[in-house]
């Protein structure tokens, strides 16, 4: 009886019982299939999704970075972006078709017109590559064949603080880890006696903007990845020296005891920051021995002093820091960040930029040449540049001998050298006004992704989970600039 009923049913009329039995078969086979996927129900490892920290994801070209940050934003139009049209059309108003509604800072938004202002100095072509470099930088011109000039950098911020924070951390709002901290997190220390991220600052005579420790903060990463500011003068690292009367063995005893107490506390609370603190005490203990040695430039031969310029014997100058950067790089510091303040030329650009350029030109070139003769340019990435560009029109009175330029985020120039970057090329192009990028733009995120690639890190894989979300230096953006990679 039952079967007869069944036969009479249309096969397309599925009753509840059929539905469930078929559903169970379907789900059953899905379940069977899912058995073939390992770790399906395991949550991802909190950090790297299985990739171990402290080791590059793939064989790196560069092992360390020296970032010569020109804080305040040097004018690209007086350094690496040659625009003869500006001379031809000098004094003419910036066409709206070029400005395209670009927002302006409060400093020039009130200006009635925007007269185009050509470069104060001439440009010449240098090296086999024929790269255009301005007369402000005669020494960098000598390394034209070792560097890759990018004229198509662009950023989103228009003021110093957000722009520099963006370049350093990948976000305009502060709170994210600095680039150097990410590298330290991803690659670990090369030399256990020195921090992996070191910061050196100097200041020129030009108009400068503030520098603050948030720029080298480790953000939500472990605090051991924070940049260590090394000061000029007698005490490069504050509070590193022992008070008088404390012997090294006393210090050792003290540290051992403190560390055992800290470990007890760690067992109680499970706070990982305690472990970092223990590690940092140990690091400081070893740094007491290593730092004075690394920072002592008296051992440098005369030829090197000559190369970097006499200034390098004066602690706290850019030249001294550049030389120091090489010494730190030799000693296995992963990320050495220099800041040279004073590039914010809203007025009196010719004089101020000349003095700024004089501060950094010789030492920057010297650093690249010095690294090269030591074979370190093979695996050290040197970066030179500011946080944004400057406008092609003049700020304030129109006076070709004494003018200023306002902030310009749409295009600026930087250069990179060594470690996985093609030497002797110029990449990217701006329009004839030097205002908009017309070829191969490089956004800050792309810049970060490319640097990480040189260091053997996949920018999409180096993540840290914080407050329920995984963060990256490049956040949700960033494309490799393949054309500049060797």
């Amino acid at each position, binding site marked *: 009886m039952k*079967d007869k009923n*069944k*036969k009479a049913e249309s*096969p397309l009329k599925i009753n509840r019982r059929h539905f469930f*039995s*078929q559903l169970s*078969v*379907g789900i*059953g*086979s*899905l379940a*069977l*299939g*899912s058995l*073939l*996927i*390992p770790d399906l129900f395991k949550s991802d490892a909190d950090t790297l999704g299985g*990739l*171990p920290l*402290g*080791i*590059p*994801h*793939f*064989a*790196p070209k560069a092992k360390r970075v020296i970032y010569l940050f020109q804080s305040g934003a040097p004018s690209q139009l007086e350094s690496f972006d040659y625009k003869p049209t500006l001379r031809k059309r000098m004094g003419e108003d910036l066409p709206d078709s070029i400005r395209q509604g670009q927002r302006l800072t409060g400093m020039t938004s009130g200006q009635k017109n925007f007269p185009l202002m050509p470069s104060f*100095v001439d440009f010449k072509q240098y090296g086999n590559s024929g790269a255009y470099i301005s*007369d402000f930088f*005669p*020494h960098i011109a*000598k390394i034209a064949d070792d560097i890759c000039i990018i004229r198509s950098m662009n950023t989103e911020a228009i003021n110093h603080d957000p722009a520099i924070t963006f370049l350093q951390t990948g976000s305009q709002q502060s709170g994210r880890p600095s680039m150097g901290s990410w590298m330290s997190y991803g690659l*670990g*220390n*090369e*030399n*256990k*006696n020195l921090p992996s991220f070191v910061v050196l600052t100097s200041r020129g005579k030009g108009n400068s903007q503030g520098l603050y420790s948030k720029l080298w903060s480790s953000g939500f990463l472990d605090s051991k990845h924070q940049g260590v500011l090394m000061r000029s003068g007698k005490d490069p690292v504050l509070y590193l020296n022992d008070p008088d009367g404390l012997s090294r063995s006393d210090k050792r005893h003290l540290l051992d005891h403190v560390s055992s107490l800290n470990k007890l506390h760690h067992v109680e609370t499970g706070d990982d920051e305690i472990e970092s603190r223990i590690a940092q005490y140990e690091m400081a203990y*070893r740094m007491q*021995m*290593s730092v004075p040695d690394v920072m002592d430039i008296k051992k440098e031969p005369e*030829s090197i002093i*000559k*190369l970097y*310029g006499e200034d390098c014997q004066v602690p706290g100058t850019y030249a001294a820091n550049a030389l120091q950067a090489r010494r730190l790089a*030799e*000693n*296995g510091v992963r990320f050495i960040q220099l800041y040279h303040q004073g590039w914010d030329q809203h007025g009196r650009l*010719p*004089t101020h930029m*000349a003095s700024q350029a004089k501060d950094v030109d*010789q030492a920057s070139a010297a650093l690249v*040449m010095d690294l*090269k*003769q*030591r*074979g370190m340019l*093979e695996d050290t990435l040197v970066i030179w540049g500011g946080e944004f560009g400057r406008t092609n029109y003049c700020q304030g009175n129109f006076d070709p*001998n*004494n003018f200023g330029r306002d902030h310009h985020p749409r295009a600026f120039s930087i250069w990179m050298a060594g470690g996985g970057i093609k030497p002797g090329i110029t990449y990217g192009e701006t329009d004839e006004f030097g205002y908009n990028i017309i070829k191969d733009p490089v956004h800050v995120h792309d810049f970060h992704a490319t640097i990480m690639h040189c260091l*053997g890190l996949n920018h999409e894989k180096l993540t840290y989970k914080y407050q329920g979300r995984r963060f990256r230096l490049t956040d949700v953006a960033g494309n490799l600039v393949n054309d500049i990679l060797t």
Partner: protein
Amino acid sequence: MVKFASKKRWADYIILGLFTFLIFCFVFENYIQLPSIVAWLGRWHPLVLHFPIVLLLLLIFLSLTKKRISHILFLIVTISTLITAISGFFLGLESPNKGDLLIKHQWLGISLAIVTTIWYWLHQYKFYNKLVLSGIKIILLFLIGFTGHFGGMITHGENFLAIPTNTENKIPENPIIYRDIVHNILDNNCISCHNPNKKKGGLLMTNFNALLKGGESGKSIIPNNPEQSELIKRLHLPIENEKHMPPEGKTPLTNNEIKILEQWILLGALDTLKLNDLDENTPLSISIKKMIRPEASNTWESLPKVTDKTIEALNTDYLTIKRIANGYDALSINCYLPPEYNPKPILDLLPIAKNIIELDLSGLPLERNEFEFLATCENLEHLELDNSTLTDAYFSKLKRLSKIKSLKVYSTKISDKSIDVLNSFENLTHLYIYNTEIDENGLKKLKVEKPSLFINKGISEAIYKSLELENDSISKKLP
């Protein structure tokens, strides 16, 4: 009756289950890793695949001839098709890089299984739209043909069914140098003009005897004497020269190819010589290996295994050992000068000596023992000995380190006596020797042997001089 109906139902469930499973597998292919027992099931694919081919063709034939199709046949066809597709999927997972063919075969195979199942269901639900059904049959015929053909190509080689011609030979593991290497080079570069049909210059290169016989300009090959062999002479002529071979406009031979021909002639131009008859380090053997595997740099794959524990144990405060990249046993080691130098941490590296690819010993007061250890690091590619106690005597111990690519010995006492050792590093590309006792004579010798070597002798005098020139043009211009 009862029995049959429930059987049919069960069969439907099996088909539904297999079908779902198959779809699942393909959707989540990238996440699946087979346990070995399941992977083994995949090995049955070449066996079971014969069933659906035959039975499906039979089924289509029967239905085209309007014969009554028994349900059981339909059932067997559908199930065997699904099983074949699934087992094929398992088998496919075993190959790390799916080639073009395999991908085609895979997608055609899964389509075949899906269409067959659809046909089965349509049949079950008594769906008799003639157009749709014949469409399905045509698609199935087409799919069987191509899936089978691609599958055959995968197992038997792409040219298995091709009309026999002069097929390009794959170079075997232990090639006969004439047949597999030399002839191959000639075939790619010369034989288009020197064959029985063309025979330019009276020279035939298609077989060994003709090649030795030579052409109008005499013998092309003089065994043991490459310099006198016409073949080699012409390869070395400037490209504008009329006698240069291959003639202008055609691709010239690579340096490596020329080297192979030269070395082969030097060794007597034998047609029986095999690669393994040669010593591993003879130039011919090296060149041939370079030709067979252009990416020899991936020798990191064959390094002995090192565990993280070993690395951890050998690390000290002043010696850092790291894997060069995740998943490799290639190590990069940096040593720093501790307050009191002790060679032990370096000498302790002996068990992992073969894994060391990059080693930085710069600035250390190294002694004999360390250099003896260094001589065992045979896979070293980057070595930094700058500012160390390196001398010529120590350096001579390193002769065996033939894989070195980049060497930093600046600011040491190394002198011209070490030029021979430097010359023995076949793979050397970068050399840093500023502030050493190597002088112009030594450099000259080095440049003759290694014309493409990048040598850095430090920053030139010209640069130092240019530092003194003040840049007046700017300051004059300033307001």
